């Protein structure tokens, strides 16, 4: 127990998030949790010490609530692991903490607002796709014509792949922009980003930056569905890049984080390699989704959720030793809609060598599923296998899939349950 107690000094303000580990880590470090969300889910009620429903878009209301609950005293830390709440986290930390820690408000917005990200990176000479910000569908069409088709149309500050679409024609650009502008997601800044489509492999780079020095924790080759929509199908380590390619990717990522002002935080950065080289597509100032934290920990010895918690608290970041030289991550998606069936209770331990595999399904046998590309579809689970060779991990994933025997039976009238508790959909 390093912190703790019942005074505000022993309380961490945690905003959003649905993973028990985010709570248990803070408890293990000896802190109590004041948890804020628009509607605190049942599961988080028992994990949090002080759960509060609050309109998290009303920053003044959130600040007043926290200030009143802590009697005007500073909390031990303000923390979030979810993309939409990163600017609020930085805002509260700046107002409530005695000394700045983690992300500044400016850096949080630099990372969260995709238009700002691209501007900052371009100003600092970090390669990004050609881009423009459109206020309406006609603007979007004009920017697309200037950049040259195909382009990618995406919301300015949404999390994940919500609304992201590759467009081959100006008509598609208008339609995609209209959808984004008419739908209310979690974003708060208006506008549609139109950017050059980089046709090539994508990489996810996980980092830990301390006192301005960035350590690359993992470089993963990222596999996506074929356009027009982008659903993460899986990841592999090693990335398949040669030494000079990996060095170049590391340098670009470090330069991107410096340009955005990240000095003491973690990141999950996505980079594409097109005909003209690497282009930074996203810089997410948070841990990656799915089970990429576990995959990165197996490779690097650093648990990114723990690292973010420790950085927010101003504690030294602890690490273990790397446990796997190869890892393969395979998202569970479906090509067709229908009712899913699979075997339960299978023993998956024999399918992974150096570490137990991760096998998660977020749907019960018999439940309806949609195709990966459908807006209500996406990812329904994941398999992660660790080993000492690419063949071992490939065989492990294949063996687990065969043992699960996932099948989808077509349904004539596919009716949807309103409750969808999946934490990740477009992401892995």
């Amino acid at each position, binding site marked *: 127990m390093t912190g703790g107690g019942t005074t505000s000094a022993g309380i961490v303000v945690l905003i959003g998030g649905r993973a028990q580990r985010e709570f248990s880590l803070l408890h293990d470090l000896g802190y109590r949790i004041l948890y804020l969300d628009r509607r*605190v889910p*049942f599961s988080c*009620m*028992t994990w*949090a*010490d*002080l*759960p*509060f*429903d*609050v*309109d998290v878009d*009303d920053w003044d*209301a959130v600040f007043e609530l926290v200030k009143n609950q802590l009697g005007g005293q500073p909390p031990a830390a303000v923390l979030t692991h979810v993309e939409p709440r990163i600017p609020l986290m930085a805002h509260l930390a700046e107002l409530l903490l005695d000394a700045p820690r983690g992300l500044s408000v400016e850096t949080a917005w630099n990372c969260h607002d995709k238009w700002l990200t691209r501007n900052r990176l371009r100003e600092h000479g970090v390669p990004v796709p050609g881009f423009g910000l459109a206020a309406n569908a006609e603007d979007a069409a004009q920017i697309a014509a200037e950049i040259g088709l195909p382009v990618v149309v995406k919301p300015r500050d949404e999390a994940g792949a919500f609304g992201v679409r590759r467009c081959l024609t100006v008509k598609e650009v208008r339609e995609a922009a209209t959808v984004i502008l008419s739908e209310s997601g979690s974003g708060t800044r208006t506008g549609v980003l139109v950017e050059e489509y980089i046709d090539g492999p994508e990489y996810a780079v996980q980092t830990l930056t301390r006192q301005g020095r960035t350590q690359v924790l993992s470089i993963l080759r990222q596999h996506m569905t074929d356009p027009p929509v982008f659903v993460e199908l899986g990841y592999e380590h090693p990335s398949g890049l040669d030494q000079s390619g990996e060095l170049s990717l590391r340098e670009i990522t470090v330069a991107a984080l410096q340009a955005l002002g990240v000095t003491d935080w973690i990141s999950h950065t996505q980079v594409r390699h097109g005909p003209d080289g690497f282009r930074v597509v996203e810089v997410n100032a948070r841990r990656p989704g799915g089970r990429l934290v576990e995959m990165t920990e197996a490779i690097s010895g650093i648990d990114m959720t723990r690292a973010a918690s420790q950085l927010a608290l101003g504690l030294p970041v602890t690490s273990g030793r790397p446990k796997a030289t190869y890892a393969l991550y395979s998202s569970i998606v479906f090509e067709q809609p229908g009712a899913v069936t699979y075997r339960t209770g299978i023993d998956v331990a024999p399918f992974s060598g150096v570490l137990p595999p991760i096998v998660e399904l977020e749907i019960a046998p018999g439940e309806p599923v949609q195709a990966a590309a459908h807006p209500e579809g996406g990812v329904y689970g994941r398999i992660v296998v660790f080993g000492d060779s690419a063949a071992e991990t490939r065989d492990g994933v294949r063996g687990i899939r065969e043992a699960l025997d996932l099948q989808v039976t077509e349904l004539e009238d596919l009716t949807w349950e309103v409750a969808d508790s999946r934490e990740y959909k477009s992401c892995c």
Partner: protein
Amino acid sequence: MATAAPSIATQLIQLAPDVKESHTSFSDSYQTFFNAVFNGGALDPKTKAAVALASALLLGREETVRSFLATAKQLGLGNEEIGQVAGIVEVLKLDAAQRPAQAPAAAPAKANTCC
């Protein structure tokens, strides 16, 4: 902070002036009753939260349970205490299911030996 939107029923009640007036009066009285119950000092805040949570669990209304669960935690009820409250509710529900309520048997009428 924005207040919650009125329910559909409340909005429709506005269409009937007499009903609306009674409803307003009833709502005010209910609020006074609610405040008297929850602000009363006979029980300490944690005990009140535990009783309210138990009642919500017995009613089986998910949103009410969620709301009182949050309040209970804010007032310092720990997970173990909450678990015990839920356990008591479950025991009573099981007991009710196994032993349906019966009116006490009426005492047999005595033979009238007197005049």
